[in-house]
């Protein structure tokens, strides 16, 4: 596209959780290297729809704008992804923006993803350390293991894997691939492993690992290329062994 062209965006809007949804169309002047966030800023600067009606700036979430914080996930042209890395030149127009559908809506493109963080509490997703006092170095870790753990630990709780999962919806309590991946991460850590049983019991709770039905959309949607299906399967294996051994040996 050349200078002087415009980009058309269709945005699904909602003034609040109880308000009706409506679509609004905007036109934004094209510039090189524009991403969806830059378009939303341009709309906020001049909140007028394509047909000349005054409206309000679009609410959306964002923070780092370089795809490490996870804030700006939304559904762009029917795909759940981060808006910061959605470059306009790579998108079909009109660019359709919708809020994620698997989380309670707050306003416009803003949703409430707090259930992911709540589930992280219920699944004990941390390494329980004795304290922040100077009590020496941590456990040694083989470089190979570090590389596996690092790939898992890049999860930014963006929620894309939940949004695309057919098993995450209002009928189910499934915690989602991101959380199963956390269980795997902490069970793999030398200290975290000491508390694996507690996590594995928790992950057999309501909405736990058993709800994964392996549609494998999660791994495709993950902006950080985390091997989520491997995590799902690994946690399945661990949870099962823990259940069987728990029944037979404990």
């Amino acid at each position, binding site marked *: 596209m050349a200078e002087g062209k415009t980009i058309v965006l269709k945005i699904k809007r909602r003034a609040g959780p109880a308000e009706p949804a409506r679509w609004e169309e905007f036109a934004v002047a094209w510039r090189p290297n524009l991403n969806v966030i830059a378009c939303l800023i341009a709309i906020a600067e001049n909140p007028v729809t394509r047909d000349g009606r005054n409206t309000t700036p679009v609410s959306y979430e964002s923070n780092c704008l370089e795809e490490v914080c996870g804030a700006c996930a939304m559904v762009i042209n029917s795909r759940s992804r981060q808006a910061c890395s959605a470059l306009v030149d790579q998108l079909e127009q009109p660019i359709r923006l919708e809020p994620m559908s698997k989380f309670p809506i707050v306003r416009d493109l803003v949703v409430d993803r707090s259930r992911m963080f709540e589930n992280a509490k219920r699944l004990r997703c941390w390494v329980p350390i004795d304290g922040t006092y100077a009590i020496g170095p941590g456990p040694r870790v083989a470089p190979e293991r570090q590389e596996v753990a690092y790939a898992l630990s890049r999860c930014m709780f963006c929620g894309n894997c939940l949004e695309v999962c057919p098993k995450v919806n209002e009928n189910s309590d499934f915690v989602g691939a991101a959380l199963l991946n956390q269980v795997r991460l902490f069970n793999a850590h030398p200290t975290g492993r000491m508390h694996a049983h507690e996590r594995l019991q928790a992950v057999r709770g309501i909405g736990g690992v058993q709800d994964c039905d392996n549609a*494998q959309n999660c791994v495709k949607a993950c902006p950080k290329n985390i091997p989520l299906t491997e995590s799902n399967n690994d946690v399945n294996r661990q949870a099962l062994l823990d*259940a069987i051994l728990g029944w037979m040996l404990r």
Partner: protein
Amino acid sequence: MPVKAVATAEVPPEATVVPAAKPDRSYFWDKLHSLTGIIPIGAFLAEHFWSNSYALVSVDRYNQASYDLQTIPWRVPVEALMIWIPLLYHGFYGIYIWSKGKSNVTRYDYGANWMYVLQRWTGLVAFVFIGWHVYLERFLTQGKSDYFDVSATLANPLFLGFYVVGILAVSYHFGNGLWQFANKWGLVVGRGAQRKAAWAAGTIGVLFALVGLAIVFSFVFQWHPFQFYAQ
């Protein structure tokens, strides 16, 4: 406009203790569901295809095999425990699991997502087909079905069509089910292992479909390619 991530709590509650989640019975029932698909249902499916393959040898061998199975000791309790109860559980619990998912394959048309959807529909087709098949060949014949009963059924082109669809659905459901089992029980973890398991399970599914169709055609065309064994 630069807009921050809007966060969670609206009116902040006091700090509250959050205990770890407790294991739930649904874990057992879910695992039982996927296990029953392999044992005994999958195992019985293999046995069923095996004994029906006698049709590929000759009418007499088929009838003999049928007769042998129909005269096993403790037939009704064995059938109930090994077939009816697991099948009913697998079928109805499967529908319950289905009801907790919401397909989105129109948005995310990835291979594994299609397989997820197909697994549900083939499961339903297989369930209906098996029910009908059992009604025809087990109850209408008072448990004494033989080669000519089956041939008579398949002489009806509509019934034949349903058999072909049913066998394909069953084979897909079983083959993909094997792969699901390998994943859901953590038998495979790495992406390479997942892929290998997919190939293996897919091959088994295709083999089941081929054998199943061969048996059907054996009845339709009086086709007994292994007849020379009996000569």
